[in-house]
């Protein structure tokens, strides 16, 4: 039984007392000043540093303009100035240089230039030369969609950022193995690399990556193969699998040239949690028998892996008992038999299951699936 005895205060009284005080404050200049100059900056400092709040860049900059007391407090809070976000902005190169020249961004940890326009090699060259030592704390660089950047730009920016851990440059067709050689020479601590749709990269890059980053955790080399000319083969991937034993996430979406030869080696990646093999047309049950040894897999995408049959999926059910996400979209060779096995072994953890287009499975309606997999909430992954 709780007891909270207080003589005269209850909520209504509190609110009334505050209303009176507020009115007084409007008239009383000294109190107003203390409020503006001390209380508000102090409260802002508290909420920014002590709670788990993450303020958007736009709001942070607005706050700078509010009052001189506030700006004096804000520029001393390091957590506000760790990210520079220019995604989808125009003139991004000039903006980056402007921002970087401000002392409060001296320790910036993350720069986002995803789909920004107006960012070219020359800007990265200026950053490297004018602000030497300036990006020494940069850990995360997102150049996704920055199609004008070439190997030269990569050389400059990686030279300026030796602490880089996460590097993402998807959909850039100018970068070649030369650019990757600059990356591996200048940045020794990469753990997360996204080279999705970088058509200029070959097995040579994979070999360099495997030799330089034994602690790599995540690799994305998704490739929509439109031309038959494929620069990435079993050999390149094999290097990565053997040397980067700690890989947790591997995205090989639409890389259809690999064969069972390299898929079987995936069993070496015992830490693997996420594997995307969408479009792996050469993957057979043999390959899946090996992959089933990666018992930590939570996410497995087998969309369009048309050579797979029940045996392979059953092996996965037996091996990957913590499976949460599975797509068998478009696989005609699997039947209800594999669903029974999955239900028996993985129904506790499965929350996403896509069996659209699996005409070999008779019981595919939502209700029938929920009978077997009570926790599934998402039935469609591939469109």
């Amino acid at each position, binding site marked *: 039984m709780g*007891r909270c005895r207080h003589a005269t*205060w209850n909520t209504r009284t509190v609110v009334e007392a505050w209303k009176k005080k507020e009115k007084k404050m409007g008239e009383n200049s000294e109190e107003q000043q203390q409020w503006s100059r001390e209380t508000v900056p102090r409260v802002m400092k508290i*909420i920014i540093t002590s709670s788990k709040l993450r303020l958007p860049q736009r709001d942070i900059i607005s706050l700078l303009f509010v009052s001189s007391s506030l700006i004096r407090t804000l520029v001393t809070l390091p957590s506000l100035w760790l990210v520079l976000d220019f995604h989808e902005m125009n003139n991004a190169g000039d903006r980056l240089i402007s921002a970087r020249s401000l002392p409060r961004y001296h320790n910036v940890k993350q720069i986002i230039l995803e789909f920004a326009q107006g960012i070219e090699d020359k800007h990265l060259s200026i950053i490297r030369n004018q602000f030497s030592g300036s990006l020494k704390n940069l850990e995360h660089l997102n150049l996704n969609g920055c199609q004008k950047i070439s190997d030269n730009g990569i050389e400059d920016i990686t030279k300026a950022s030796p602490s880089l851990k996460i590097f993402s440059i998807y959909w850039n067709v100018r970068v070649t193995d030369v650019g990757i050689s600059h990356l591996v020479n200048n940045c020794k601590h990469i753990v997360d690399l996204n080279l999705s749709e970088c058509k200029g990269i070959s097995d040579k890059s994979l070999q360099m990556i495997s030799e330089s980053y034994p602690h790599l955790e995540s690799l994305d080399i998704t490739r929509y193969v439109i031309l038959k000319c494929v620069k990435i083969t079993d050999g390149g991937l094999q290097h990565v699998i053997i040397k980067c034993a700690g890989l947790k996430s591997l995205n090989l979406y639409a890389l259809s040239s690999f064969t069972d030869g390299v898929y079987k080696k995936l069993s070496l990646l015992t830490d693997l949690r996420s594997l995307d093999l969408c479009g792996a047309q050469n993957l057979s049950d043999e390959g899946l028998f090996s992959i089933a040894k990666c018992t930590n897999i939570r996410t497995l995408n087998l969309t369009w892996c048309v050579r797979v049959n029940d045996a392979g999926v059953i092996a996965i059910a037996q091996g990957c008992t913590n499976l949460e996400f599975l797509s068998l979209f478009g696989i005609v060779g699997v039947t209800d038999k594999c669903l029974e096995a999955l239900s028996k072994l993985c129904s506790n953890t499965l929350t996403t299951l896509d069996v659209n287009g699996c005409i070999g499975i008779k019981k595919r309606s939502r209700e029938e699936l929920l009978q077997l997999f009570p926790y599934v909430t998402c039935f469609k992954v591939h469109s």
Partner: protein
Amino acid sequence: MTSSKTIVLRSSDGATFEVDEAVALHSLMIKHRIETGGADSTTIDVPEVTGNTLSKVIEYCKKHVEAPNSDDLKSFDTDFVKVDQAVLCHLAKASYYMNIKGLLDLSSKTIADMFKGKTVEQIRETFHIKNDFTPEEEEELRKENSWNLFV
């Protein structure tokens, strides 16, 4: 059930509040004081917090200690922060000083939502802040940050 111990909390302006020890312990700062305090740990001073604010803080702690799993806890929290910005600011300060994480996160988020997406003028108005920049200072600031302004 054995009778629970009570603690007296004293605000900066001398107001006293008698609360169950369990409720008071929701504040890690008070918990620490009690655990490290001597024999006379039945009255605890909270000099950073006024009576008005302390009363509201106690209300929060009471609800969260006595009915932590109740269905209406969420709506209690929502209603609890339907107060004006001055009260919210004092709540944030008090919860920081008294180390009550739930209340700190709640009041912080509410304050941040109050200035989310707002213009500079609107923020000043909402929080009763005086603009003390000179026109020259403002112009300089604008130039310095033109790279980020959404014109």
